[in-house]
């Protein structure tokens, strides 16, 4: 749409709305890619065997969605694996923390370029 006139005001408004909607889609896509990169690394670096013989590999999942106007990407372990990985991540009385969840999130967030698809 070129030059705003009283005749093409509606077309301008439609074009603006379309552009904003595309921006939201682009932002959500970028956020999802970030979540997928984090999950991929976390799955690769999760403990293969915890003390009780449970593997943490491939238990990290990505869930993307919207809560009202807020877009989110939730990256984390499945509930059954969660407490085992929490013991690994934060440590126990007998075992020091071996963080990989926080480390990967911080590293990937620092590298993230929201304009890169």
């Amino acid at each position, binding site marked *: 749409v070129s030059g705003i006139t009283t005749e093409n005001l509606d077309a301008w408004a439609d074009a603006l709305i379309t552009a904003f909607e595309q921006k939201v889609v682009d932002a959500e896509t970028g956020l999802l890619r970030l979540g997928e990169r984090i999950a991929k690394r976390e799955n690769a670096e999760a403990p293969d065997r915890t*003390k009780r013989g449970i593997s943490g590999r491939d238990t990290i999942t990505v869930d993307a969605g919207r809560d009202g106007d807020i877009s989110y990407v939730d990256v984390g372990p499945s509930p059954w694996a969660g*407490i085992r990985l*929490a*013991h690994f991540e*934060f*440590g*126990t*009385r*007998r075992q*020091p*923390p071996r*963080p990989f969840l*926080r*480390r990967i999130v*911080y*590293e990937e967030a*620092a590298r993230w370029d929201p304009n890169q698809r």
Partner: protein
Amino acid sequence: MSATTGGALKAWIEAGGLGIAAYRDSAPENATWPHVVVHEGLVKIPDQDGDTGDTGATHTIAETVQVSLWQQRADEFYTLPDALVRRLHGTRLPTAPTLVYAVLVASSARLPDEDPAILHDAITVTIHRVV
């Protein structure tokens, strides 16, 4: 002056009037309850300051540290985790070996330990400091 960031955190916690001892990396077997263990250097992310070609430039990092509060469930001090968060959040660690711009508490999680008689509050802290 402390030799390490973890040592500066230990000194800051112990001087806070909370009545708890703090240790670096691990607590001795006979440590009194409750106590704190500081795990420093979990992640160090350099800030993008653009001075990569200047060897004399001051560079800064965001260092992630875990401050673990260990309590016996039977003698739990319910207000202690929040008091520790208040003590940490916003300090600049006056005895740190390098200039600290800010200590920010990123999260605090109450976790069940493998030993059901023990409680663990894991406080994740980001220290913005000169490297």
